[in-house]
């Protein structure tokens, strides 16, 4: 896409977050969508494009009373919403639609109106991984880090520090699920979930949602809030089976998606003021820092340990507290995008002063897919 040709003009999360036993999945989508339409000063009649994952975009359009001329149901896991932003930008530039609504809602904890948890037994994972007892993220997403630990000498303490630093950010966020400070010892003394991951190194499981509205940058000035311009986008995939990664110490999907977005934006790493890396588990930010090129291979954990990503550091990372402390409904990518938008609008609870460029980088499945969105509050 042409950098800055499309902007986010509406962004909001669900009214409540955390445990929401009285809203079903589609109601969470709708709550987020209505909040976002209000944020943008629009109604359903003003929307002509719908994208979502987890639910059908047909269901969302019908539920909200939208007549779409463009639909995108790309569902590649938690980064799907990054891909929706990218596809929506292309669609708007191509004239397929003018105003796109992207929704997410998930009853991850309460499971109200939620679909089944696991994939089909005839899928590749169902045939070749499931029979060996892997049962979802805690016992499969965690496997690659064992190779990383051996290859680069990553310590349990360094891994724990990822959660400690993110809690520092969460402490500043009134909507974060967990806000009390924690230490490396607290993390290492928390319950072992799947070696080497302790409870506090695993993301939360909560209920919630979020939505975005995008339109062309030329129209963006007519909306009530400061537009946030899309200046670079990327997406890629590697394998549906974590066991088939080319190299357990690095995500090919991260590298390809990230490079695509950086190339498109025409920026250098020094230009980036704020970074979100989907943190399903504590190793994800380490892989993200390295695979996006902010750190050399094997140096991501040290970069975090030395305080570069904490409040006041040179690269503020996961400033909402992340999946580890803020919230994680299942497909967290939407919340990473929401925090990037808040930072670019200048309204984040833990605002990075003067931030002009933000990256939201997502993972789908267990290093299966990836999406990267680079935003700016200045039109290039």
């Amino acid at each position: 896409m042409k950098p800055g040709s499309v902007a986010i003009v509406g962004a909001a999360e669900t009214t409540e977050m955390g445990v929401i036993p009285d809203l079903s999945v589609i109601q969470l989508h709708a709550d987020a969508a209505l909040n976002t339409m209000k944020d943008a000063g629009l109604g359903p009649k003003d929307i002509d494009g719908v994208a979502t994952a987890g639910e059908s975009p047909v269901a969302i359009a019908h539920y909200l009373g939208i007549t779409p001329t463009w639909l995108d149901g790309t569902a590649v896991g938690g980064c799907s919403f990054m891909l929706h932003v990218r596809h929506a930008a292309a669609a708007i530039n191509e004239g397929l639609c003018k105003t796109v609504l992207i929704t997410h809602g998930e009853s991850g904890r309460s499971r109200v109106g939620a679909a089944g948890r696991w994939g089909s037994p005839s899928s590749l994972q169902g045939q070749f991984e499931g029979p060996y007892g892997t049962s979802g993220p805690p016992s499969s997403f965690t496997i690659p880090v064992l190779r990383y630990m051996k290859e680069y000498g990553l310590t349990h303490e360094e891994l724990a520090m990822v959660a400690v630093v993110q809690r520092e950010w969460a402490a500043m966020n009134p909507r974060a699920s967990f806000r009390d400070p924690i230490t490396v010892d607290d993390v290492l003394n928390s319950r072992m979930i799947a070696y080497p991951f302790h409870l506090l190194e695993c993301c939360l499981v909560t209920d919630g949602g979020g939505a975005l509205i995008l339109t062309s940058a030329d129209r963006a000035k007519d909306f009530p809030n400061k537009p946030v311009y899309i200046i670079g986008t990327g997406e890629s995939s590697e394998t549906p089976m974590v066991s088939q990664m080319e190299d357990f110490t690095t995500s090919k999907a991260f590298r390809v998606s990230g490079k695509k977005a950086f190339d498109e934006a025409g920026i250098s790493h020094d230009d980036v003021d704020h970074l979100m890396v989907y943190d399903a588990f504590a190793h994800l930010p380490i892989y993200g820092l390295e695979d996006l090129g902010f750190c050399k291979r094997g140096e991501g954990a040290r970069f975090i340990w030395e305080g570069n990503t904490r409040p006041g550091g040179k690269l503020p990372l996961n400033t909402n507290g992340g999946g580890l402390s803020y919230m994680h409904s299942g497909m967290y990518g939407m919340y990473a995008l929401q925090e990037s938008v808040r930072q670019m609008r200048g309204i984040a609870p833990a605002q990075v002063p003067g931030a002009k460029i933000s990256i939201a980088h997502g993972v789908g499945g267990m290093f299966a897919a990836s999406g990267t969105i680079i935003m700016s509050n200045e039109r290039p």
Partner: protein
Amino acid sequence: MMTNMAGVEQTPEALILDMPVEVVFEPGNEHLDIPKFRPAAGVIR
């Protein structure tokens, strides 16, 4: 490939990355056996 280790304690201390292993076929159902791996002969368990 994803698989399970057989004939070895299921602890981080006993499951050593890169240890030599050998395949064992455990009975699955009437149609197939399940390939698993155990520490190769001579490897201290």
